[in-house]
């Protein structure tokens, strides 16, 4: 009995399975058809929606671009104004700073130049004083030396002139003036000193 049941159950199971498979297949076909139909319909809607969305997007994009451009322009204008204002302020500030720095530097330069000029003048004055002192000393030394040399030359001349002249005359005359030429002059001088000569001779006698 049990075996018949088994068979039956087996057959029943197989039949159930076949029936279920057929049902499943029918369901699947239905689903596929339904899906295809829905897909077809959906495709039609999607295209239109897509077309609509594209226009909107384009418009929106354009609008957003325009808005963005406008905003950018506004921002740029604002930025330009700010930058210009800032630039002017910065320029003014820089001018003031530079002028101030320049004035300070010029003042310092003038002060330094004045100090340097004063120091240079002082150095020149000291150098001039030293130079004048040295020049005075040199002038005095030269004058003393010249005077001493003049004196020495004068004394030397006084001492040597007779010798020089005598040497010169002796070289010039040599033997040109002989005692014979001078005899008359010698006799005249003897006559002039006759008394003294004769007295001394006779004293010797």
């Amino acid at each position, binding site marked *: 009995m049990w075996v018949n049941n088994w068979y039956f159950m087996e057959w029943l199971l197989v039949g159930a399975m076949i029936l279920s498979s057929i049902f499943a297949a029918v369901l699947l076909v239905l689903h596929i058809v339904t899906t295809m139909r829905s897909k077809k319909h959906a495709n039609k809607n999607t295209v239109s929606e897509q077309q609509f969305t594209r226009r909107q997007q384009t418009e929106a994009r354009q609008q957003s671009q325009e808005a963005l451009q406008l905003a950018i322009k506004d921002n740029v204008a604002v930025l330009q104004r700010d930058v210009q204002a800032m630039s002017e302020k910065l320029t003014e500030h820089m001018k003031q700073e530079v002028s101030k720095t320049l004035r300070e530097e010029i003042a310092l330069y003038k002060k330094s130049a004045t100090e340097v000029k004063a120091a240079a003048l002082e150095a020149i004055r000291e150098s001039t004083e030293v130079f004048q002192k040295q020049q005075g000393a040199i002038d005095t030394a030269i004058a003393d030396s010249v005077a001493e040399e003049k004196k020495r030359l004068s004394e030397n001349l006084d001492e040597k002139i007779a010798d020089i002249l*005598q040497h010169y005359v002796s070289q010039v005359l040599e033997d040109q003036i002989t*005692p014979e030429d001078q005899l008359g002059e010698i006799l005249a*001088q003897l006559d002039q000193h006759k008394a003294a000569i004769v007295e001394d001779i006779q004293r010797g006698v």
Partner: protein
Amino acid sequence: MVSRAKKVTESSKAGQAKVSSGDSLPESVIGPAHIMRLIREVESLEESITQLKLVKNAATATDLPHVSKMLGAVAESKGLSLKKYADRQALTGFLHKLQQSPTVNITFATQPTEQTLRSLTQWFRTHGDSHTLLAVNLQPSLLAGCLVRTQNKLFDFSAQQKIVEKRSGLVAQIKETL
């Protein structure tokens, strides 16, 4: 030898007595060198005559050796004969005495001639002593003129002295020029 010396001394004394101190010398006899030369000549003459006497045993006039003109003139000026022994001795004594005569030293720049010296000697013998002798010296630095030195005095008649005397004026002129 002693007797001969005595004889010479006596002869000299006799000659000195014979030669008067006031007699003048010949102009050719100028200085002490001449006197010395004359003394040597007289002595030489005496020696020669003595030798001749020994050789020929005769002292005649023809045997008298040659003598210089100066010696002859001196003997003649004194009236002495060189042939006579006493006169020769007298001349020798006279010449020795002349060595004590006053001598004037006279210095020239160059050598004077004999004539010049005679003229100067004549002046000294005319105005001073008749037996004055001149001792001549040379000193080229005198340039010209002469330097006369008697026994105690010096007389500078040289050009050198004149230059020295006029040195101050010369120096002044040179300084003015400079």
